[in-house]
């Protein structure tokens, strides 16, 4: 038995050394949402390690004390039915742990599902992130620009991602800024993020979506608001406008490099917002043709009701 425990301990040590070399993406947060999630993860790893250690200690003790080779030949194990107090402890302690973690979990749910902490008073930057096989299209309706496979964001400003898909279900994920959320073709989901620090981050589709899934990634660059504004200005001066026929070509299955356009595809191919409200789909599409994308704040719908 001892061999196994040395093995397990050395495995654990190995894990920690490896984890120590370079911070793991999820545990190296660069925004308040990812920070909250990393805190939850570290808290649960801590509590869970205690449980695992307790179980292992009890098990090791029992295995050493009660193995046959250590006991006299005539030892007859007793018949034990159960003990009320032992059972109360075995039920009570897990209930307390689960209750505490539930409390943390519920609180975190409401935090990650609303504007990032510390950014509540700022006007969020709204970005529509839509996936097609196997690319990401980022539309900035307020700035009137659109990019493919790369994302520029200002730091210290709340970001509100409106996610949907032109194909299979995908999942929009920038590990260092916060957890993922699905993008689906018949509704829009909202993901609240913010970046505390400038830098380059990895973003990807995390949900399997077919042949080109592995390469379905995008680069995220966070920069101060002033730099971001410069970039927007530059795009307006240099990039070509996006047209409907061009966009149709972009969403064909395949891979593309990074691209930049002025205008957004939302103007001629709106996002499926409210698709599951009582309004029928046709009415909805029609009303969207006339919607000014500036008043996105009205679209702050939570999809919990659907």
């Amino acid at each position, binding site marked *: 038995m001892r061999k196994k425990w040395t093995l397990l301990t050395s495995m654990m040590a190995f894990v920690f050394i490896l984890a120590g070399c370079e911070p793991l993406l999820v545990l190296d947060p660069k925004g308040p949402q990812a920070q909250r999630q990393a805190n939850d993860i570290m808290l649960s790893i801590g509590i869970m390690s205690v449980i695992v250690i307790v*179980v292992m200690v009890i098990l090791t003790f029992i295995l050493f004390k009660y193995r046959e080779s250590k006991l006299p030949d005539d030892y007859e194990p007793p018949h034990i039915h159960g003990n009320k107090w032992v059972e109360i402890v075995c039920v009570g302690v897990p209930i307390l742990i689960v209750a505490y973690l539930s409390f943390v979990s519920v609180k975190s749910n409401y935090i990650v599902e609303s504007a990032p902490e510390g950014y509540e008073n700022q006007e969020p930057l709204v970005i529509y992130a839509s996936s097609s096989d196997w690319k990401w299209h980022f539309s900035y309706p307020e700035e009137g620009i659109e990019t493919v496979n790369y994302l520029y964001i200002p730091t210290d400003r709340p970001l509100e991602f409106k996610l949907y898909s032109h194909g299979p279900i995908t999942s929009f994920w920038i590990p260092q800024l916060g957890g993922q959320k699905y993008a689906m073709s018949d509704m829009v989901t909202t993901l609240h993020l913010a970046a505390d620090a400038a830098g380059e981050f990895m973003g990807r589709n995390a949900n399997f979506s077919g042949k080109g899934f592995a390469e379905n990634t995008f680069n995220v660059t966070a920069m101060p608001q002033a730099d971001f504004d410069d970039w927007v200005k530059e795009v307006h001066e240099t990039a070509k406008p996006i047209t409907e026929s061009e966009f149709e070509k972009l969403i064909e299955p395949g891979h593309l490099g990074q691209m930049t356009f002025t205008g957004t595809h939302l103007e001629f191919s709106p996002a499926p917002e409210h698709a599951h409200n009582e309004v029928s789909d046709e009415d909805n599409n029609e009303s969207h043709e006339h919607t000014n994308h500036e008043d996105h704040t009205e679209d702050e719908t939570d999809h919990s009701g659907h």
Partner: protein
Amino acid sequence: MEFLERFAIPHPSPAIYASMVAIALVSIGILAGLTYFKKWGYLWREWLTTVDHKKIGIMYLVSALLMLFRGGADAIMMRAQLSAPDMKLLDAQHYNEIFTTHGVVMIIFMAMPFIFAFMNLIVPLQIGARDVAFPRLNALSFWLFFAGAMLFNISFVIGGSPDAGWTSYFPLAGNDFSESVGTNYYMLAIQISGIGSLMTGINMCTTILKMRAPGMTLMKMPMFTWSAFIANVIIVFAFPVLTVALLMGTTDRLFATNFFTTDNGGMDMLWANFFWIWGHPEVYILILPAFGLYSEIISTFSKRNLYGYSSMVWSMVLISLLSFLVWTHHFFTMGQGALTNSIFSITTMAIAVPTGVKIFNWLFTMWKGKIRFTVPMLYSVAFIPLFTIGGVTGVMLAMSAADYQYHNTMFLVAHFHNTIIPGVVFAMLAGLTFYWPKFFGFILNEKIGKVTFWLLTVGFVLAFFPMYITGLDGQARRMYTYSEATGFGALNMLSFAGAALMAIGFVTIVYNIYYSFKNSSRDIGSDPWDARSLEWATHTPVPEYNFARTPQISSSETFWDSKKNGHELFKGEIEEIHMPNNSGIPFVMGMIFFVAGFSFIFALWVPAVISLIGIFICMAMRSFEKDHGRHISVKEIIETEEKLGGAK
């Protein structure tokens, strides 16, 4: 020519052509062998038409082991492809097919038949019954499973394998994004074997409720029977959901309905919900019988009664109820909002409480015991800490806000393998070693068994623990490749090494069976492990009628009572025994289902309709058949009993 084109493989490779040749050669070899050794009659009389629960159990066992190797071959290819950055072993399409079939084969065609094998072999013996409640239905269940499994396994040589993941989420699995017949195979093969599973569920519930030996109240049932009962109740409630979802998926693909499409009023999220309303209870269908096996094994090799019997039962009942209330945790990231996620986060974590009770009960069963480290016990002892790690990572995943970071990553893959391998696979191997002598008359070699155990345990730790780390480092699951810059290379290589050790471990099981068959002593008596519950009270190997006289039950450990406390297990005279007759109809129906499934997959409507009619004819024949079974005479019973070692 155009007609034949549909059967071609859409993405051929030399490996697939080689497999085609291998399959053809093996099939011809089997057919030729059966003919040469004149075994057709034996095969038909003893196996294809049997309704004996023990033989059906053995057929499930053999199928499960075969499928373990099929699913394992998929696994080792996946780990090899990911062992280094930018590996060129498999392309994206093949990788996608392989992880899809790996998941389906391991859950539906390996783990399910494995637990059905033990339910069939053990439950009637543990409750002192002669067979299950509906022996012929039981045979049909097996042949439907078998038809489904064969159908699924020919997909990669005829028409192409499914490639949308074992969860087969729409719209990816719809016609727009999965054009090949692969997903049709998924829908129909699982449907056919799922119908079989549902029948087993009904059959086993009836057996356990109605056929227990006199004196065996519910709270005197052995723990494995309890776990099997609860698992089958879950089957009865969960499988109809899968049946309906698969039917809707099939009509979407074949008849252009719009249940799961993204336009015309369809809803892709509906599939995800249906799938997991079945899918989550499904994991408890697998794990509860495993818990039952561990309970039997730990108490036998600790020479102690099971600690906290009633809390063991109640915890399983609670787990079965909660298992239906947690499905949303498979897609916390679908955007249901904080309230829904909070509710499902709490129900999910709540499962940790009854599961924790079970872990502590096993620990206290060993406490003050006299522990013998046999191979089945080694698996059980390794199960406790490893499953605890799998369980606590489950609690971590249940924290929905944090799950946004774990979801779809290797962390999740590590978690569910961490529960399924030490939980289910180790239990099946422990059960296999434990019950092998009961059904085959010899003990598997302990030394080779220990080598297997260490290979699998060390291999498991090496293969799956690194995934927790790469998951947290941003490695998404189901990626067929990654770049060097990601830094996932070293840990994935470690995973591959672990997977290779496990592969060697599984091969040693086959070697062990061969070696023990040649060398093991056949003189082992009927109770080689000094066991406690009723299944050990009959002869080894078990006669077809199980018990010559119906046993009288004193407690959940009747056999132990009869050995130690002088409880009289068998009273009265031997009487004539009524047994069911063999029937070829279940086998024939299974084959017709295979043809029907194949026809639907390729939209061949004429054979589809003909085979559906054939199924109804078989059912009608059964309805009008007068078959009252047969009787084994007292003389015959006494002869068998004497031959097997004295009337017990």
